[in-house]
């Protein structure tokens, strides 16, 4: 009896607890939370691209105001935080369980091969995920928390005062060490997504001769374009700060 079974028993959902705590149920949670994060990334990227507009941060600050004040977006953002936490904790628990299932003695010779996915990425999802989580933690502290605590300067746009998130972001992107950390993290996210995108469909049982090749194709493109889009922004901003272009 897991704690979840005990928790859901009084409301008559023992079967649902059993489902969620089964090996397939656990992977399903990973898949659904992962897919939700996959949906979120392009939205985030569209916002970040506002940083490239040459208007001293007006469009970016208006965008960040919208993101922090629109009730629908605020609701979805709580779902997003929940997904990140769920995906991380569940991932770590599965990682621990899988290591235990493998046992203490590994193979003297390792010759891992697979079909139709990046085997190296697939077998290192936990490590990649841990690096991504560290990035998200730094990222949330640096931008999200400062914004929430109101530790960002204010700016006047057309007679109204807005939080000037543009300034700390551009300042962070003027640090070459941070730019490298950011770009490397994006590469790691790309590798994680390269396996994760198509893997989440397979886990949901969505494997079909007509659609799977297409899902794998889109997944590879997505895993390249989205991290590339994120990574290019600090590089462009850094270049601008140093008058490279």
């Amino acid at each position, binding site marked *: 009896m897991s704690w979840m079974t005990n928790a859901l028993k009084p409301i008559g959902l*023992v*079967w*649902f607890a*059993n*489902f969620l705590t*089964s*090996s*397939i*149920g*656990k*992977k*399903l949670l990973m898949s659904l939370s992962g897919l939700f994060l996959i949906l979120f990334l392009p939205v985030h990227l569209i916002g970040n691209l506002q940083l490239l507009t040459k208007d001293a941060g007006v469009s970016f600050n208006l965008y960040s105001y919208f993101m922090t004040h629109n009730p629908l977006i605020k609701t979805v953002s709580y779902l997003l935080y929940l997904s990140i936490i769920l995906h991380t904790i569940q991932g770590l628990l*599965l990682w621990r*369980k*899988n290591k*235990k*299932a*493998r*046992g203490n*003695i*590994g*193979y*003297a*010779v*390792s*010759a*891992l*091969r*697979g*079909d*139709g*996915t990046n*085997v190296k990425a*697939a*077998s290192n*999802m936990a490590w990649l995920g841990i690096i991504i989580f560290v990035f998200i933690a730094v990222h949330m502290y640096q931008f999200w928390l400062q914004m929430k605590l109101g530790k960002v300067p204010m700016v006047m746009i057309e007679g109204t005062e807005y939080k000037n998130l543009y300034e700390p972001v551009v300042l962070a992107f003027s640090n070459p060490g941070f730019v490298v950390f950011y770009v490397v993290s994006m590469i790691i996210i790309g590798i994680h997504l390269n*396996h994760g995108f*198509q*893997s989440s469909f*397979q*886990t*949901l*049982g*969505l*494997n079909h001769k007509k659609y*799977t090749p297409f899902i794998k194709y889109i997944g590879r493109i997505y895993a390249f374009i989205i991290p590339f889009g994120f990574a290019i922004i600090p590089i462009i901003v850094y270049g601008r700060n140093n008058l490279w272009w």
Partner: protein
Amino acid sequence: MKLTLKIWRQPSQNVKGKFETYSLDNVSEHMSFLEMLDVLNEKLSFEQKVPIAFEHDCREGICGTCSLVINGQPHGPLQGTTTCQLHMRNFKDGETIVIEPYRASAFPVLKDLSVDRGALDRIIQAGGFISVSTGQAQDANAIPIEKDVASHAFDAATCIGCGACVAACPNSSAMLFTSAKVAHLALLPQGKVEAQKRVLNMVRQMDLENFGNCSNITACEAECPKGISVSNIALMNREFLSASFSSNDAN
């Protein structure tokens, strides 16, 4: 051929094992891998040493008794082949071959290269059968079933339960094995009757046996001597999802 063999030796389940190195001369390239081990065992017996324990039965590639991880690969380097059907011509003269048992907590080593794969039997006992009356042989022929579906079911049924999927999986997951059995029976009209109960019970038993979870690494499919496809895992996930939400089982 002259070979150097690094073989895992372990006297019993709870005793620590280690690799021993043996050299073997005059190995014919026509020998199967198991015949090569037979020759080594004869030599060891002649020298009053304990022969190496390994499992084998039909030696025709159809029973699933042989195992071994050869140079890091379950059933060796040749794809779609069991160890008993792997011949020494696939190795080079003077080569060093590392032979290990399957590694998984659910498959404890009994002795040397022999492991206990009883966990797979218990998964089958949990639901890998049809208990409703399906009539006589001619009744099966009278049931209309599309050729493609029959072929799909047959492909899944070719699983010999050797456990190479578990051995190959970095998570030691038994999803490919379990899904092959679930798919085989769920696709056929006779198996559909108990499909929901079957998938729930088999997945439950699989979880009890301490196998790992599927990360869709696909090493199982790559190493499976019968080429069982990971699409069966997706099919099992669908079956499990629908059975969890709609079966008559209150739990």
